[in-house]
């Protein structure tokens, strides 16, 4: 037997003993062993080492039962200390989610919202008085947002919804991220329009924003809830109808004709009050809670 064959075999012997050689190597070692006394002695030596190791390691005790409880306790302690996932990973998670949902929102929403807002801007710019400017903007912004939001969810708006729902992203997260995208876009449009009006017409910014912000949040939250319950068309029509009533009341109060007695009440309800914002929040919460259930009803 050549000594190089022995060297090679002896190098492979430990792995031969623990059974991690390839089939081919194993066969060659076995062939060599049948005709080499030296390597068989080596094998016996490794087998003794392996046997003693197995016996020694097999005697190792199992960890105590408290060790497992310690693992959980430590994880919970660390997560409590961290408060939440690290800000960096949270930001990237949100970014991934928004980026993934953006292409799934109907394209028309972006264009239609921008055009309608531009129209509102023109009307506001042409208004004769500062209060008419504010009024014009506050008439357009909420309706744009509400109709846009009515289109973000549901099988009629999203052929790939089923696919989106089979991913680890929950229906709730899908809805919330689309809402953030569309409503964020509409908020940005309305804010940009406000800044433009401040620059051109010299009205003050915060009173202007407070004119449209509350109604916008409320009408959008309502439209979203209705779009899930009744569908996009019903939600859009309801939002437009409600808004029409408000326009009527506004015209009634503004003209001072007093034709309609409820007009002042309707106007008061639509003012940007904490109550209106709170109602919007309640409706949004209800929507998010019931999304998964509604999905099954659809």
């Amino acid at each position: 037997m050549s000594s190089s064959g022995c060297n090679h075999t002896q190098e492979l012997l430990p792995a031969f003993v623990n059974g991690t050689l390839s089939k081919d190597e194993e066969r060659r070692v076995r062939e060599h062993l049948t005709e080499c006394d030296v390597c068989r002695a080596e094998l016996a030596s490794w087998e003794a080492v392996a046997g003693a190791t197995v016996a020694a390691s097999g005697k190792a005790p199992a960890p105590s039962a408290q060790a497992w409880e310690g693992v959980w306790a430590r994880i919970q302690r660390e997560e409590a200390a961290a408060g939440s996932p690290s800000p960096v990973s949270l930001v990237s998670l949100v970014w991934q989610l928004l980026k993934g949902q953006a292409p799934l929102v109907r394209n028309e929403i972006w264009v239609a919202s921008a055009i309608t807002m531009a129209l509102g801007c023109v009307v506001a710019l042409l208004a004769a008085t500062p209060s008419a400017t504010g009024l014009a903007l506050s008439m357009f912004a909420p309706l744009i947002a509400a109709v846009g939001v009515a289109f973000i969810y549901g099988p009629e708006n999203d052929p790939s919804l089923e696919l989106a729902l089979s991913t680890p992203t929950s229906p709730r997260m899908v809805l919330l991220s689309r809402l953030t995208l569309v409503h964020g876009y509409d908020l940005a449009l309305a804010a940009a329009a406000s800044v433009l009006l401040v620059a051109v017409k010299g009205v003050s910014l915060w009173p202007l924003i407070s004119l449209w912000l509350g109604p916008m949040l409320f009408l959008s939250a309502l439209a979203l809830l209705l779009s899930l319950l009744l569908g996009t068309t019903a939600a859009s029509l309801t939002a437009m109808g409600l808004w029409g009533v408000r326009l009527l009341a506004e015209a009634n109060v503004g003209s001072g004709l007093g034709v309609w007695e409820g007009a002042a009440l309707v106007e008061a309800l639509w003012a940007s009050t904490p109550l209106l914002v709170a109602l919007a929040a309640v409706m949004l919460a209800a929507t998010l809670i019931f999304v998964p259930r509604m999905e099954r009803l659809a």
Partner: protein
Amino acid sequence: MDATHTLHTATQRFAFGVKERAADEDRRIVARLARGDGRALEELYSRYSTAVFGYLLALTPDRRIGEEVLQDTFVAAWRSASGYQGRSSVRTWLFGIARRRAHDALRRRRLNVTSDEELAVLADPEPGPEESSLAAARQEELTARVSRLAPQHREALTLFFFHDLSHEETAEVLEVPLGTVKSRLSNARRALRKSLEEPEQGER
């Protein structure tokens, strides 16, 4: 001899199939772990805590430190599961985490892990031709001597012969080149043989 070999081959083939299925199941568990599934951590723990603990006891005889590092290991697995690429087996991954945690813990306590140079001194300077001494030794005596080997020797032997890791997997856990794994196994064997020449210590 032939019949034994056939049986040996069949057993290994069967063991291989079982191992593959277990490895698939392991990967599924870690995927769930990455999604923050607490039950998955419990399953992983029930599969591997004893093995990891046994390995840790090869590194430190202190049970208390061993359990602390065991907890460290599973907390770290929970945190880093999303980074697990599936390149190595879950077992190798866990042993690797355990080893790093153990080294950190031992360093914090200023307990040194023996270096390779010191280990070479512990081993017989010249490989003896008398391999039969190990094969002829009484099993209980040899087992007791293995328990008293230097941590790095015991660690290599345990990973390789008890947990049946391959050379490559052992190298991955120990973070050393393949050649070092082979020489460490040989050194461990030589140290074991050398220890047989010393008088047996009283069994506790």
